[in-house]
């Protein structure tokens, strides 16, 4: 079995385990390359029809191309879409310039997600994070419990032996499931190429720059690049030494912002 098929099979196994275990399962979909790959893997796991909703957290500050791409995929794949939005904070005008970035992320993303989980009663969520994105994500488990306050008890994570994952959540927990943990950025692009997946045009270079990691408009910087196709992105990754999330503001506030954000329930 080749490398990509090995990664794919491991992910499908995890997706099916989570669907078996959890009565109310949802998946987070940012419309980026990773979570779109995850949507595709879920389609494979369930033979074309995903039996649970996909959740889009809308901060109101995403790129227009992201909304357009989202609606196109929903249509094409028949997805059951839930939009999660913190309208109260948006009405107050919360943004990256009104205080610390940590506060903006926490209100517009983490709080929006908390509310969405409460309304829909999700007991587990699939997320497309990968270990090679960030040092703190390198420490994640495939199945990662969060308490009622969303806290991640990273000093006391459950053991995860072979393919045996943490069991059914009781009332105060929800579980984060990470079926793409073992994929690298380059694997994602090779897989997109192999499977001919649709991909958001923001990843392709325009005027000498492209987005390598997508988030909100004010906190996302494009990197210098001429790569305007999947093939060219793969070629660029072969030589690039720029960190994938170099354009993401949250990672730079201080060395532990991601740890703080993730402990508070950030994705």
């Amino acid at each position: 079995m080749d490398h990509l098929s090995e990664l794919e099979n491991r992910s499908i196994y995890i997706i099916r385990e989570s669907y078996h275990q959890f009565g109310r399962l949802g998946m987070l979909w940012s419309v980026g390359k990773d979570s779109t790959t995850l949507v595709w893997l879920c389609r494979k796991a369930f033979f074309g029809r995903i039996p649970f909703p996909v959740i889009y957290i809308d901060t109101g500050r995403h790129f227009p191309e992201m909304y357009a791409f989202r609606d196109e995929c929903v249509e094409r794949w028949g997805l059951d879409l839930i939009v999660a939005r913190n309208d109260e904070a948006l009405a107050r005008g919360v943004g990256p310039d009104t205080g610390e970035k940590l506060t903006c992320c926490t209100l517009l993303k983490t709080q929006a997600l908390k509310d969405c989980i409460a309304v829909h009663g999700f007991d587990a969520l699939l997320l497309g994070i990968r270990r090679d994105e960030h040092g703190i994500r390198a420490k994640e488990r495939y199945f990662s419990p969060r308490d009622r306050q969303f806290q991640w008890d990273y000093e006391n994570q459950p053991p995860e032996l072979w393919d045996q994952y943490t069991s059914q959540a009781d009332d105060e927990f929800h579980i984060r499931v990470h079926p793409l943990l073992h994929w690298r950025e380059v694997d994602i692009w090779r897989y997109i190429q192999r499977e001919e997946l649709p991909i958001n045009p923001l990843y392709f270079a325009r005027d000498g720059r492209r987005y390598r990691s997508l988030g909100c408009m004010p906190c996302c910087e494009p990197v210098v690049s001429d790569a305007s196709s999947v093939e060219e992105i793969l070629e660029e990754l072969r030589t690039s030494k720029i960190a994938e999330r170099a354009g993401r503001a949250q990672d730079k506030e201080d060395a532990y912002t991601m740890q703080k954000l993730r402990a508070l329930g950030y994705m």
Partner: protein
Amino acid sequence: MDRASLAFVMVGHVDHGKSTLIGRLLCDTDSLPDGKLEEIEAAARAEGRELEFGFVMDHLREERERGITIDTAQTFFSSPRRDYVIIDAPGHKEFIKNMITGASQAEAAMLICSVAEGVQEQTKRHAYVLKLLGLAQVVVAYNKMDLVGFQEAPFRRVKADMDAFLGRLGVAPSMEVPISARRGDNVATRSGNMPWYDGPTILEALDVFAKIPPPTDKPLRFPVQDVYEGPEAGDGRIVVGRVESGRLERGQSLRFLPGGQVRTVREIRKYGEQDVASAEAGECIGVVLEDDGLERGQVGGPQDDLPSPTRRFHASVFWLSPTPLDLERQADALALKCATQEQPCRIADMLERLDSSTLELLPREDGRLRETEVGELLIETAEPVVVESFYDVQELGRFVLVRGRDVVAGGIVTRPEA
């Protein structure tokens, strides 16, 4: 280009340099992204330390403050020959469950030992875990050679202790390399400081590890993971699961145990693929059978080559929970999870109790098995399960024990009772 990727775990006693060696490997093979070195320099300065290569892996603030690894982490790097997944494991006894989590995902191991301190408690415990988990490919790195003036004699002394201990376990290291992770000697490049050593560097030693192939040559084992209704109306039911060993063919007759149903495979389903004739170990598939009536936990296999379901088996069990096993009070029921099977179980007998570091047998009178201890247990499940010796088919020979939602132990089946 599709390069193979090999996963190895870095183990050894606390502060013998596991994280430092990984940081050094990444740095010297030019695998760190731009700015990473500057970031860890700044973080080290903030803690009042010199540059710590260990900070590449130790990313939690608590880890950097205390200068230790708390949780296992994985990172990626490439040698000219292939890609690697490096699994860093903590060296403290209190984090042994994180170490085992890391080791259970690996195909090979690097055991690191400081020549300044020699073989220590966790050096031995980790070596024992490697043995228990069946990780036969081991390289030993003798670190901190700079602290003993790069002399051969202290290296020989520690190596003799190590070889004696590994010999007792029946572990034969493929390579033994003297290094200084902090200074980079014999990590990615050959050291000029140890002319008496003419063996490989760490990077070269890694390339000797063999990729473990999926067990396609073993008899077929296909545990039912779930049963879905097909996506189209009138599609019928699809039995999904992963082929754990061997190969499954369309048209083949399978027996499913426990239960004993014999079913013919009418179709193998993989989304987006037409006309699938067979699937091999590692593949997640769906199968359409005539009249399945099957459920999760049943194991499919060739009619004449499946182990009999049993309620009793012998196992080596590594206890991971701070709350000990108490043979006299098993009211808080345990459950066994093996492949997709889950069954309530009790411990019928403890035949041996072992200190996983000293390998000494411990007294069994009080009927307790404590954290980090290993018991040779006779396990009895409520209903029959399909298990095999770990040495025959690993996938049906390894399991965890859970109490409520917590995994409290990991184990391997040594002998099912007929």
